[in-house]
């Protein structure tokens, strides 16, 4: 980071004078991409891969001539899983480094910490992470999956396969509560019933009581929306208490590769809807995985956030080239046409102009007793429909807010 930081400083001195540069001068005038991700602290396990994916994409793009002939330059800071660092460095990349775009954030709290700053300085940020959904903000593009994409596929499948009694075990904060709300809604729509719901404060690592509650409720399957490394201890503890129920999740495996970290069979019969994991067996996916491993041989796992980050760089390239500018308003005009799409490692993805979220290919990953992955089902082109239906339309109005199903956008 020292090197990229210094380069950033030098380049900052150069920009400004070269705004109208074309062709000949272009190599002197890089497009700057800020990267704020947690490379240390609590979330490091899931996010170091995102930084590597961005580095990989930038290297590929620069090798093949950059964006409109301009090289792509990364300005990277380690946010240490700390919200205040996001606030400090978001101001830094926008004001000091004057980047054209920022790729930032893992936890929703970190995103909400930096979002007011992006809005204030009229920046442009990509949040390449699966999350609880609902951000309706013209300054943001979200490439991660949202609940309607993951649950409208996962829950009906699980109910058909295993039965209609559902127990939700969720992290007790925004992501878990809102995801649980989605599960409740979809279970009801499909004629099922909630056998129970339990929320676990972040950082809790002991689950004996929850395990007993689940056994008492006798559900057909358990939806585990557990977040963070401490909460992941649930699986080992549930397995050792022989709970032996099928599990469904939108966060595990695809993000924290628990099936690689725990000893089999603690994640047996876990079903996860994810838009990418390294086991996906398509030519596109294999090619991406091979490139990733060639550049970062010691990477423990290539997760969905890594793929989101990788494809986001290419999406940004496409937007800039079509807008012929890095200006956010020009780029949003391109997004508004509704055909910003690409063939990503997961399959075809498109940006939805109303919410600036992304459609995904959703893979149902099943963890076997030996922790191998199989894909019983694949859904193509699953759209992030909720925000648009609820009344968020960024092509018309930019409220710069986050909504939830129980707190939807105000009706016009």
């Amino acid at each position, binding site marked *: *980071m*020292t090197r990229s930081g210094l380069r950033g400083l030098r380049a900052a001195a150069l920009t400004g004078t070269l705004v109208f540069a074309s062709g000949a001068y272009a190599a002197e005038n890089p497009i700057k991409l800020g990267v704020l991700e947690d490379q240390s602290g609590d979330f490091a396990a899931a996010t170091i891969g995102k930084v590597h994916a961005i580095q990989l994409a930038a290297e590929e793009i620069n090798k093949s001539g950059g964006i409109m002939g301009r090289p792509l330059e990364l300005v990277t800071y380690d946010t240490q899983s700390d919200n205040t660092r996001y606030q400090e460095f978001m101001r830094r990349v926008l004001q000091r480094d004057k980047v054209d775009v920022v790729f930032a954030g893992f936890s929703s*709290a970190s*995103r909400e910490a930096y*979002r007011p700053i992006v809005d204030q300085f009229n920046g442009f940020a990509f949040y390449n992470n699966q999350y609880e959904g609902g951000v309706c903000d013209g300054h943001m593009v979200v490439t991660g999956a949202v609940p309607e994409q993951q649950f409208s596929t996962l829950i009906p499948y699980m109910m058909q396969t295993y039965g209609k009694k559902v127990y939700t075990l969720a992290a007790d904060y*925004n992501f878990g509560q809102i995801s649980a709300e989605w599960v409740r809604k979809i279970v009801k729509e499909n004629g099922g019933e909630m056998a129970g719901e339990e929320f676990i404060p972040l950082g809790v690592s002991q689950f004996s009581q929850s395990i007993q509650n689940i056994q008492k409720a006798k559900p057909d399957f358990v939806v585990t929306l557990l977040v963070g490394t401490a909460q992941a201890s649930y699986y080992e503890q549930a397995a050792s208490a022989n709970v032996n129920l099928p599990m469904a999740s939108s966060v595990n495996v695809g993000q924290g590769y628990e099936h690689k970290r725990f000893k089999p069979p603690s994640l047996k019969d876990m079903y996860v809807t994810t838009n990418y994991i390294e086991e996906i067996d398509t030519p596109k996916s294999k090619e991406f995985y091979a490139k990733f491993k060639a550049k970062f041989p010691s990477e423990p796992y290539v997760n969905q956030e890594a793929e989101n980050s990788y494809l986001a760089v290419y999406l940004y390239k496409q937007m800039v080239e079509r807008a012929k500018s890095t200006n956010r308003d020009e780029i949003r005009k391109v997004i508004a046409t509704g055909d910003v799409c690409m063939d990503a490692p997961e399959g075809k993805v498109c940006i939805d102009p109303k919410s600036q979220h992304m459609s995904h290919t959703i893979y149902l990953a099943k963890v076997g007793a030996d922790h191998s992955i199989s894909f019983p089902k694949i859904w193509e082109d699953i759209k992030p429909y909720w925000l648009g239906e609820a009344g968020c339309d960024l092509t018309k109005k930019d409220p710069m807010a986050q909504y939830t199903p*129980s707190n939807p956008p105000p009706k016009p």
Partner: protein
Amino acid sequence: MTGFLGLFRRLEGPQTLGRGPAFWALFALVLAGALAYPLFSDGYTVGNTVYFFVWVFIALSLSLIWGYGGSLSFGQTAFFGIAGYGYGILTINFGASYGFTWIALLLAIGMAALVAALLGYFMFFGRIGGVFLGIVTLAVTLMLERFMAQTAGPEWRIGAARLNGFNGMSAMPPLTIPWFGGPIVLFADVGLYYVVLAMLVLVYLALRILMNSSFGNVIVAIRENPERAEMLGYDIRKYQLITFVIGAALAGLSGVLYTVWGQYITPSSMGMTAASLPLIWVAVGGRSDLTATIIGTLVVLSGFQALTIYGSQYALVFMGVLLVLTVLIAPNGLVLGLITWVTKRVARRKQETA
């Protein structure tokens, strides 16, 4: 008139470092530098300096309670958070017009002080002291954190303000000065810089006066030997309570300014890590002096930020090593240690020449 002059005389005394024309000349020089500095700097640097200043108040609060008063409070972040959330709730509900943000600032600090008064009464009049005080205050701040983290649901709202759980509350208006021809909104830039700088100078001078007054002397006496102070006829519980409330108000000011700076406040600001950081800043600088606390806090904050920017993945390791070395090499804190070392050298030289 004499009373007023008396206050000025209290600006220096046995409880604070620095006295005489040389010190105040240096103070004026630093102040002039601080006032002129935005003219030579860019918006980012100024905004970033405001950010550092914001944390100085909570450090001062700890210097007051712990350094001078001898009561280790591990939970100043509780008051930081209460005031931060208080400001958010008030301004989101009542807006920023007619200078209401300033009333909200005062009310939010008042809330923190009120909670501190209740908690302080419970602790000091219950004769809780030493490490037990630390654990009770820590328990309070962790409780607030855990509670606020789960308030994501729509039922957790106060008026128009949603608490919004772990993701934190945002979109509160920044401090706004009503002015002819449109209010001045103080974003984290030059405007806010001068306001916060003014507050910092005022608080610093006021605390100097307070600490060199008879009140301050009693506080230090309680730190040195509570039994003796009590035998001398002072109700030490009352003194400790008042110190604690003043400290909480300062921590609250810090919280409001932080909320204003980033238009954001989160439960993590009251968590374990957040709670320990002020202890680190204060201890590194030298907790038993106001000036040392301010310098130490600014040095640690900017040093750690620079390490994070330029130190790659080793940043946190470096920070750790620096902290350990500081404690081993400078027992009274970096700044206090340096000042004592320098004054000793100067004294020795004087002796030699004499």
